[in-house]
């Protein structure tokens, strides 16, 4: 079970990116790595879908980007949440919890 990798359900990538950026700015690779680490490598982000999602969130104004230096002194593009993004994160988190609770109830009782 521990080695099973699950592809992200449709629509959850935005939520995971926003949540990962909540503590502070991260660059794209770090976001991907962080999600895999926290999920103990159960969740696998298709790396090719990460960057379009980041750019889409930036376009919506939920995150902003600026260039900086990474830990190994490489130039990297850092993303951070905007105020709008924080509100969106709260809303999406709440909706996700409601959804999982409802699905869980159905699975347990049906």
């Amino acid at each position, binding site marked *: 079970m521990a080695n099973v990798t699950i592809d992200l359900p449709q629509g959850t990538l935005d939520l995971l990116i926003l949540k990962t950026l909540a503590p502070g700015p991260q660059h794209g690779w770090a976001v991907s790595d962080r999600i895999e680490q926290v999920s103990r490598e159960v969740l696998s982000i298709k*790396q090719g879908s990460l*960057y379009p999602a980041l750019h889409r969130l930036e*376009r*919506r*104004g939920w995150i902003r980007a600026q260039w900086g230096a*990474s830990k190994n002194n490489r130039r990297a593009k850092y993303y951070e949440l905007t105020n709008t993004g924080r509100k969106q994160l709260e809303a999406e988190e709440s909706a996700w919890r409601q959804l999982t609770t409802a699905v869980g109830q159905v699975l347990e009782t049906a």
Partner: protein
Amino acid sequence: MIHDLLFRVRVLVRRHAMEADLDEELRAHLEHQAEKLIRSGLSPEEAERRARFDFGDLDQVKDECRRSWGVRLIDDMAAEVRAGLRQARRKPVFATVSALALALGLLANTMMFDGVTSVVEQLSPHQQPASPVLAAQNSVPSPPPVNKSDARPGAAVRKAPNKKPSRARPSRRSIESHPERLPSVAYKNVTVVTAAFFLTPGAARLSAAGWMVRDAESNRNHFVLISGTWSRARHETALEALEITIHSGDVSYTFVEVISGNPEYPQQEGWRPLVHNARAAMSNSAQGGALARTEQSGQCTSASESLSHL
């Protein structure tokens, strides 16, 4: 919404910089991933190969990123135009013949629809209305006919088929000389499409105004021109003439209203010019007139009210 728009504008304006940023961002990602794999024990070459493999098709990812910028449509259109221009340069004769064929086709279509429209209009019951359409948002009864012995404001109408709207100021004699030929005035609700002013330099008040209105019943546009109204009182007479010309297709109707030097008369009688953004319209052109777009009928501001705030 604003973020979205600004982002798209930024992409269009700084396209090369955005592309360069994207390249560098993806390259940095691959380098980070390769370093991680090297730390896990792979050789640098193997780590780099594995990182690229895991990442997938780089060009496809770039394309997905460009798609997420929201300017795909503009990109595609620009590409189509460029391709078209390249083709036109390669085969100029073919391009010229194609353009001419298209132009002729458009012309033929236009002429055909014009002919069909004229036939339909002839068959339509609205082709020649029994009474002219009065361009006013109106809830008051029709004004009384002109009475020679009465100095009160009156109304008169003359119909001038196949004649463009005249802006000549009617004399009092012309107003009162043919009352028997004048049909009654019909008031209708109309929607103002555009409004325009024509300022007379040095004049204290509005000299002329015009509206493009849409008649809700016939669903047709009419051009309404008001000339010679709100001009300064003349010394020789206390009466002022208000000429309103409605131009609908080939037929023009000219209403001549007698006003008694009262600039508020048109408003009192239900003539309510729909004027919005009058200040902006005026400021755009000091003398030549300007367009003021309106979107609703019903509530309106009279021209005199608007002008008083200028």
